[in-house]
């Protein structure tokens, strides 16, 4: 379970980005975080990863507040998370295979064969078994995201998956493929997932609940269907 409790955050320039954000994501469920660009979605994501420290509030991962944690402890928490950053954040000096095996190579004692087998398995899972030796620069946007998913799942079996705009900048068909993949990942493994997106369609495809962000505040929270039925003016504009 992930719980944000009254999280307030501002960057160094002191304009407040997150205002009293309170959200709860039960185990084995998927939350879609919707919102206009610049509304603070990625910022919340980085707070959850412990990359940014909120000025006040608590961020609970399985009942442990991660805000006061030091880097060492954070690493343990992060091992339970698989992260797909905006645009994938693949290491572009490494091949696709090396990207997927990167975490294992750095943190685990595995033989080359074992590692190769797991990389192959991971890439097959996202439908990119043939791309092992390609460089990230040679991949299309959709392929990069899929490799990022494979990388996020490769090393430790994550209990939590986080996706930052996995479908933005993709054509609708590729975006649907990514959504299907996310759906497959989270149902097969019973994962707790947060997916940031501004496509309503993604939310319907993958999410149990949605939260709509507006200017760093949770403007609406509920099921995707109830979001559609709302007669609030801003929501109407957002879903239109």
């Amino acid at each position: 379970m992930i719980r944000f409790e009254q999280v307030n955050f501002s960057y160094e320039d002191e304009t407040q980005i997150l205002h009293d954000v309170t959200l709860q994501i039960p185990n084995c469920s998927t939350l879609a975080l919707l919102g206009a660009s610049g509304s603070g979605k990625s910022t919340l994501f980085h707070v959850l990863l412990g990359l940014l420290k909120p000025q006040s509030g608590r961020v609970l991962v399985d009942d442990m507040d991660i805000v006061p944690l030091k880097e060492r402890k954070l690493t343990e928490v992060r091992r339970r998370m698989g992260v797909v950053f905006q645009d994938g954040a693949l290491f572009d000096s490494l091949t696709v295979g090396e990207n997927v095996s990167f975490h294992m190579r750095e943190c685990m004692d595995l033989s080359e064969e074992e590692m190769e087998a797991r990389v192959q398995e991971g890439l097959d899972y996202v439908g990119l078994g043939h791309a092992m030796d390609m460089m990230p620069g040679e991949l299309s946007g959709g392929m990069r995201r899929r490799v990022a998913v494979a990388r996020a799942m490769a090393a430790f079996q994550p209990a939590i998956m986080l996706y930052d705009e996995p479908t933005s900048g993709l054509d609708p068909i590729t975006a649907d493929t990514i959504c299907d993949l996310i759906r497959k990942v989270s149902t097969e493994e019973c994962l707790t997932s947060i997916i940031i997106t501004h496509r309503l369609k993604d939310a319907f495809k993958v999410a149990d609940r949605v939260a709509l962000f507006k200017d760093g505040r949770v403007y609406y929270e509920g099921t995707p269907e109830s979001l559609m039925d709302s007669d609030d003016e801003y929501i109407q504009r957002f879903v239109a």
Partner: protein
Amino acid sequence: MLAAISHQARHTLFEIQYGVHLTLGSVWAVFTDFRRRDVVEQMDILGAGSFGIVALTGLFAGMAMGLQFTVELSVYGAKDYLGKMVTVSIIRELGPVLTALMVAGRVCSGMASELGVMKVGRQVDALKVMGINPVAKLVMPRMLAVLIMLPVLTVLADAVAVVGGYFAGAVVGKLSWSTYWAAVDQGLTVQNLVGGVVKPVVFAWIIGAVGCTSGLLSEGGTRGVGRATTQAVVKASILILISNFIVGFVVLKMLGWA
């Protein structure tokens, strides 16, 4: 206007602070999280690409010095001292400075752009999330690689330059190798050698710290990276020239002026 200056000053202070932070972090990482493969890889990238241009720089700097000094010294009938003149000016000044400037041009920009792309592309965050310390993985290997390679490259440039000086002396002043070499030998004093080794170490630190700092502090997408890259080279070059004077002064002061 005043606000802009104070903002700039604060930013510069922050950069210096961050550079020191990266340096200390790298020293710490050498003992706690040493990554031999990354260090060797960086040394390879740095060395393999730099030997050629550094040797070429040394050769022509030495020949140019040899040419000018031969003509001037001949006026006083002192061209037998050519070797000493060339050696002193190369080892103390030109060798370290030119090598550092060449390496700064190649390596500082490379570090800044590589790390900048990793920063804005969130690859640095991806490392952190995987529990890998970016300073140990990215900064320490680069800093250590320059720290090892720059003195080596400087000695290479020095040696090539001294030989280059002889070519000029032989062609213009009909100097023999034994005369030239005897004078070179006189130039190889403790002061000169100490100064010649201390300088590259200081310059290497400047190149590593400026390159990594600029890269990791770059913001604002690919344009920000471009800006960080060019600024890194300019900053490093200026700092090299300033510290060259300071280190030269301190070494002479400590070891005597002669």
